[in-house]
């Protein structure tokens, strides 16, 4: 009941390439899940399937609906930003609000106007006259003013400067997230959203290589910083990935007790970006 997305054996192929290959997962209500993967890993395809923008094989249920066949019903309770600057360039801000107000039963124009009044976006401006950052502010204001159960952000801050990105995620947490709503985010800048997430899902070559809650990561994964003979000894414990930092060897372990590792050097929890590289590039 509290599962927002339930995917069972979901696949999607374009010709002979499988963009999404037999993927199964659930996303629970109230979670902020980071969907992380390299370019072409199948993130966007998977999100499109969840949004009902593309058909797929397997069983996919979003908010209890079949996304492809019940897209209209679904869109009352889902918001998404697919990419920045996809708003129609010819429309005026006020027209945009008029339109969303007319077609969206869960949209609060008052809230959108409140949010916009804190920005430089004027109601009479056309989207083409706004900077990229302002377009994103407009889009985010509209989305935030929609009382949706699931928010999907696909590279929402691509091409924006760092100040804006920080603000974006700050606003997302303060204005949007209330524990009832569920958010799925993809981004290349993992380190910026790491503190936000409650769950991470790694996807590579259309397959999910890791699906874990952030709280569970320290229990499962450890990173050992070591060198020389200690490194050789530690390698016998079966690291999933190894890299070199300032002449030291950093070994990433999956499911190896930290007490076994600590004699060989400094042990800590890998950050999401490093863990991602380890899971994708390392031999699992």
């Amino acid at each position, binding site marked *: 009941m509290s599962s927002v997305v339930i995917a069972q054996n979901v696949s999607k192929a374009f010709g002979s390439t499988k963009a999404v290959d037999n993927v199964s997962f659930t996303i629970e209500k109230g979670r902020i899940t980071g969907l992380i993967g390299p370019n072409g890993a199948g993130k*966007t395809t998977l999100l*499109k399937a969840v*949004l009902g923008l593309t*058909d797929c094989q397997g069983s996919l249920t979003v908010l209890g609906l079949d996304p492809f066949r019940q897209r209209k019903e*679904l*869109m009352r309770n889902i*918001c998404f930003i697919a990419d920045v600057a996809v708003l*129609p360039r010819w429309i005026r801000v006020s027209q945009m609000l008029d339109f969303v107000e007319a*077609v969206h039963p869960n949209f609060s124009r008052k809230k959108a106007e409140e949010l916009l009044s804190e920005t430089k976006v004027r109601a009479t401006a056309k989207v083409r006259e706004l900077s990229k950052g302002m377009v994103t502010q407009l889009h985010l204001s509209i989305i935030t003013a929609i009382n949706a159960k699931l928010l999907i952000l696909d590279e929402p801050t691509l091409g924006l400067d760092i100040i804006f990105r920080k603000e974006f995620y700050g606003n997302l947490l303060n204005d949007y997230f209330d524990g009832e709503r569920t958010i799925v985010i993809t981004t290349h800048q993992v380190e910026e959203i790491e503190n936000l997430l409650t769950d991470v899902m790694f996807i590579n070559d259309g397959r999910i290589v890791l699906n874990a809650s952030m709280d569970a990561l320290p229990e499962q994964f450890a990173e050992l910083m070591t060198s020389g003979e200690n490194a050789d000894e530690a390698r016998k414990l079966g690291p999933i990935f190894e890299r070199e930092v300032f002449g030291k060897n950093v070994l990433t372990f999956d499911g190896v007790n930290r007490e076994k590792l600590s004699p060989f050097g400094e042990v800590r929890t890998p950050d999401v970006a490093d863990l991602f590289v380890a899971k994708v590039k390392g031999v699992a």
Partner: protein
Amino acid sequence: MIGNQVALVRRELWEHRSLYVVPAVLGLVLVMGAVTGQVTISGFGTHVDMALLGATNIGVNERGAGLSLLLAAFAGLFVIAMWILTVFYSLDSLYAERKDKSILFWRSMPVTDAETVVSKLLTALVVIPIVTLAFIALTELLVLLVTSIWVGLRGADAWHLIWAAVPLVDNWSATLLVVLAVSLWLAPFVGWFLLVSAYTKRSPLLMAVLPIILLPMLERIIFGSNLLSEAIYSRTSSIPIFKGYDGLELFDNHSLLEAAKEGISLVSLLDIGKFLSSPGLWVGLVVCGLFTTAAMYVRRFRDES
């Protein structure tokens, strides 16, 4: 459903400003023509100056006929402009949103693809004709007003000579029926344009026109028949709405003037029953429906990456 249609059609008018800017400019040009005396009533076979309209030896029927012909000529200009606008509008309607990548935003709203495509069809077949009619009526009123001032300045009684003689309501009713009928009659083309607009990756105009030219040629080469070219030609050259005429020759041989001189209303020249019972209309609407449905499926199933 209906609320969504209103919002969607309004959206179309926001995006495609040319739908009212073009008729507004055309109307403005005609009104300016009247102000500068360029537009005169030329329906009497000879070029007639405004002053002649005041001549008392022309009867009320002839004055009405002359004015009707002038207004019909105005309406004709607007209908030509309307069709050019409709072609470009329908070719652009499902192409622009993909080209500027805003389609994902539109599809993030709780609106089905079918509703969106229907709103574009409605805009092309109903909204554009009604907008056109509104500009025709406004232009005609302004031109008649300007003409009244001309006539008045020459000491004649404009109310009696113009406003009492011109059958405005009859003209407008006939114009409304004709613009709607033309739209419905040419609906299969609109359906085809919508499909091309939803499907093509580039140059919708070329992609829409090429098959219309090439397929009849292929038919002739392969089967030696002319069914397609006849179907296309007969549809663009005639419309079964005028009483006693198959096509537009009503306007060619002064029949309209003759009819108007006898005080016959323009509406009575139209045969709505014949139009509505003509198989060509319904075949065309079915073809339009098939193309439109295909456009809905293309919008729904196409993966924009």
